[in-house]
């Protein structure tokens, strides 16, 4: 059969010579290879001290966004939940009352919003489905936790801090995460 590329190397099936059968020489050759690796640069990223730059498309922990007036963008339309292949997102909607206009952008909002991080596969489909720019996958890991309960993230955990009411809130939140 004709080879498709010139990359293939035919296996040498000729009987081994005496020196090859001695095996010792080849062992020494192999040991030289491993020895040379002692002086190679380690590609290891020493994680807590060194952090690798996330790629711009990294999909990490979710955040719920606010608009420029500090109001929640989410209207509990359920598109993220229906897009979610892992069925990790659940929510419960409520109607905005008079006087709550500074809290919620639209007349409907998510009274409860939960992401089960145990189920989430961080595919980012919720982010793509969202018509209100409300949910984003940030460049943060979901931190480890001692209990399974700790992975049920509710709205308080997901909402980004309101920088209009507390100017340092974002820095504080980032400081906790760092």
């Amino acid at each position, binding site marked *: 059969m004709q080879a498709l590329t010139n990359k293939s190397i035919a296996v040498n099936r000729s009987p081994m010579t005496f020196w090859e059968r001695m095996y*010792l020489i080849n062992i020494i050759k*192999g040991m030289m290879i*491993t020895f040379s*690796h002692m002086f190679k640069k*380690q590609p*290891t990223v*020493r994680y807590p001290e060194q952090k690798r730059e996330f790629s711009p498309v990294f999909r990490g922990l979710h955040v719920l966004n606010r608009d420029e007036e500090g109001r929640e963008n989410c209207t509990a339309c359920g598109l993220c939940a229906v897009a979610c292949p892992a069925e990790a997102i659940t929510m419960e909607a409520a109607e905005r009352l008079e006087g709550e206009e500074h809290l919620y952008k639209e007349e409907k909002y998510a009274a409860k919003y939960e992401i089960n991080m145990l189920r989430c596969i961080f595919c980012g489909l919720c982010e793509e489905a969202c018509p209100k720019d409300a949910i984003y996958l940030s460049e943060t890991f979901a931190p480890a936790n001692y209990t399974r309960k700790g992975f049920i993230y509710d709205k308080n955990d997901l909402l980004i801090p309101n920088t209009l009411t507390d100017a340092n809130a974002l820095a504080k939140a980032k400081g906790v995460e760092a």
Partner: protein
Amino acid sequence: MTLLAFDWAFIIEKLILIVIIVLTTLLITLYTTFGERKVAAILQDRPGPNRAGPFGLLQPLADGLKLIMKEEIIPDASSRWLFIIGPGLAMTASLMTCAVIPWSTDLHLFGRTIALQVADVNIGILYIFAVVSMGVYGIMIGGWASNNKFSLMSALRAASQAISYEIAMGLALIALLMTTGTLSLKTIVEDQTAGHWWNIVYQPLGFVIFFICAMAECNRTPFDLPEAENELNFGYHQEYSSMKLGFYLFAEYVNMIMSSAIMASMYFGGYDLPFFDESTVAPNIAAMIGLGTLLIKIVLFVFLFMWIRWTIPRFRYDQLMNLGWKKMIPLALFNMLLTGALILSKL
């Protein structure tokens, strides 16, 4: 200071020496496990354990602590006493070897001459062989008592492997004994210090055979067939947990250190630092230098063991047996005959 016809000071001295040597050996072993992981890491372009303490130096303590904290499991169907005795026996046998190793020249303290060797028996080498053979019992008993077919199979492998390679090892040693003319390790080392070449020069082939056999005796890769995970799950210590498992794992490293010490003593001049005249310094300092030299030689051998382990894949069992019986033993016999012929021609 003799009472009831005993030299009590001698006994106390030896007891202290035993305690120090055993403890030091254990400590070194502890760090050998750490060294193993570190060497493996460096050979594989990664940092290795570096979290516990500075440079990860407390890692062995953490490992030990972990083993101690683990649940102690004794299988229902096991032979309970043998199951418990097994790891102890393996550990004891490994540690007993250090009794005859001459660690250095004599120390002069409190007006006494203290030999840095627990027992200078004139059959040192035979003693080592006897004790090393005992080590197989630890593995065999442990594997059998576990009442697990994998454990039993691996124990059988270990036993047959040890027996096969002991023959070649013994034959290689006979050649050495023919040149040295003594069985006492102390004498062998002293012969090498006193202006002679190291024995490696007279017995290069013998050393290679001995080294390969030592690796097989210690169940080190490429001869770690008793622990072949892919065939035997985990090996003869499969049913063990907690510190009993720790003992088995430890015994392997103690064995490794002991065989390094023996090889250093028999072929590489033991505590002899080449091109250095010990008589120019005070005897105690000379003893310390000797001890340091021996330790360095041991460390180098241990590194060699690790280096080989992280380079060469494991043999197949038939290859192991072929190598042992069809290559090593004829080679050792040939070496013995050659040595004899050379000695005869010199006479």
